[in-house]
């Protein structure tokens, strides 16, 4: 299991109600449902992944996070998880607003564009960085809005979003991933 999943799962309280936005093939949901809470469901855009979630016995709604979060009422989940998909949305600001409307808390992870390997790649090679977490070339990447951990922190400050980062390692240079527990 990805180390990231472990960190995310540890942020979720036992028996809470969780929505995993962009839940992929359901691996994180499966881990959380077996270890933390079985009151978890996912929203996923890929038909192939939806089938994989159903195979795993997970509750999943096929849909698009940018359009379909509005159907959930305010504070209908204790936690809403968004794992490494924020940068792929057309309007990430709106998605964050929606996450914090429907969830009492949100767990957001981002691939950190400020990671030292990314910086060095751009500095020395002069081309868009390609790393394990950012495997695509500039012309075929699904990532529209890359940011660094520092960018995300600034964004939250500007929007008066509280970052509960006590158990997070969010160093801008040394983290490949930023993991945030946020609330409004």
């Amino acid at each position, binding site marked *: 299991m990805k180390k990231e999943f472990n960190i995310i799962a540890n942020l979720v309280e036992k028996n809470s109600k969780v929505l995993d936005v962009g839940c992929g093939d359901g691996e994180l949901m499966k881990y959380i449902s077996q270890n933390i809470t079985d009151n978890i469901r996912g929203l996923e855009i890929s038909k192939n992944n939806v089938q994989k979630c*159903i195979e795993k016995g997970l509750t*999943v*709604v096929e849909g698009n996070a940018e359009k379909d979060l509005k159907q*959930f*009422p305010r504070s209908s989940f204790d936690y809403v998880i968004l794992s490494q998909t924020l940068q792929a949305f057309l309007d990430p600001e709106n998605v964050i607003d929606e996450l914090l409307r429907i969830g009492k808390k949100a767990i957001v992870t981002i691939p950190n564009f400020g990671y030292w390997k990314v910086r060095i790649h751009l500095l020395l090679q002069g081309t868009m960085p390609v790393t394990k977490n950012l495997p695509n070339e500039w012309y075929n990447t699904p990532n529209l809005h890359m940011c660094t951990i520092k960018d995300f922190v600034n964004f939250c400050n500007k929007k008066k979003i509280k970052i509960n980062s006590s158990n997070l390692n969010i160093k801008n240079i040394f983290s490949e991933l930023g993991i945030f527990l946020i609330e409004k």
Partner: protein
Amino acid sequence: MNKIEKVKKIIINKPLKLDCGKTISNFPLAYETYGLLNEKKDNAILAFHALTGDQFASGINPVTNKEGWWNYALGPGKAIDTNKYFVICANVIGGCMGSYGPNSINPETNEPFGTNFPVITINDMVNAQYHLLEFFKIEKLFSVVGGSMGGMQVLQFVSNFPNKSHTAIPIACTASHSAQNIALNELGRQSIMADHNWSNGFYEKDKKLPDKGLAVARMAAHITYLSKKGLQEKFGRKLQERDSLKFSFDADFQIESYLRYQGSVFVDRFDANSYLYITRAMDYFDLIKQFDGNLSKAFEKSKTKFFIISFTSDWLYPTPENREIVIALNAIGNDVGFAEITSDKGHDSFLLDVPDFLNAVKNFLNNSYNKFNEKRI
């Protein structure tokens, strides 16, 4: 017709007040079962049929000697596995496979009711079938499942009996019959009524049946069950057993011949008045209006776990109409999953061999059943 007299039936003695205001009692409900009810009686599934279906969902229909309408999905080892589950399927009231319908004899006249049969609704159909739970002494069903009009019955069932099924699978359906669907049903009904033999619905008297009208109704409806792409791929402009156009109104094209065939075999197994009554029931279905414009209220009292399925090429009950049900359930925090299955086979996809669909149903049922059993232990 003798074969129909032999089908399994329960007689419902308790008076049933219909939406039209009339009350019926001592009426037959024809049904069939598949698989075995286990000792705990926790493996029962009620399957609802669509417009022209019947209780013979799986195996060979003893009346028509043709395969059951849901043979791809339902049977031993199939998506709805009758080695594991006990499946009950009833002929809806208003139908023509042994349940109380316009074909039934009116005791006052000793003739078939014809159009003197009361207009029935999806709600009436579901209320009648609820008696099957009492008959089999089933406290709570494991699932209710159905496509098209069967899906509407699933929605109505959960709304009427919020805690009588653990899970529900409405497939390719809607919570409110659209203007387009009412229009298409009206086309079918007018076709039947335009047949001289229909005689205002009292055609049994002289045994001249409105077959032509019913066949045309079926032909028109059949087109709506397929997709443009599916039709184009299967038939294109291919000619029927000829090399060139005949400059006549014969069936030059394969698609014409196919539709004529579909119409002609349909009249052998279906009753024209039943077609009128059942399409009317579908038109009247509006669960949203039943709950004053708020569909969520229909499911407020229910803890039933839903799995809703639509198909990409279904233009009769398109994805947005199915999604509307998902949204209503999410709005009140109910447990709902949803998948749109890719298929070129149109609305008929739910009746056909569409592996993604069949796998999804199988996985949902089996995983849910295992979870309920874990919780009980």
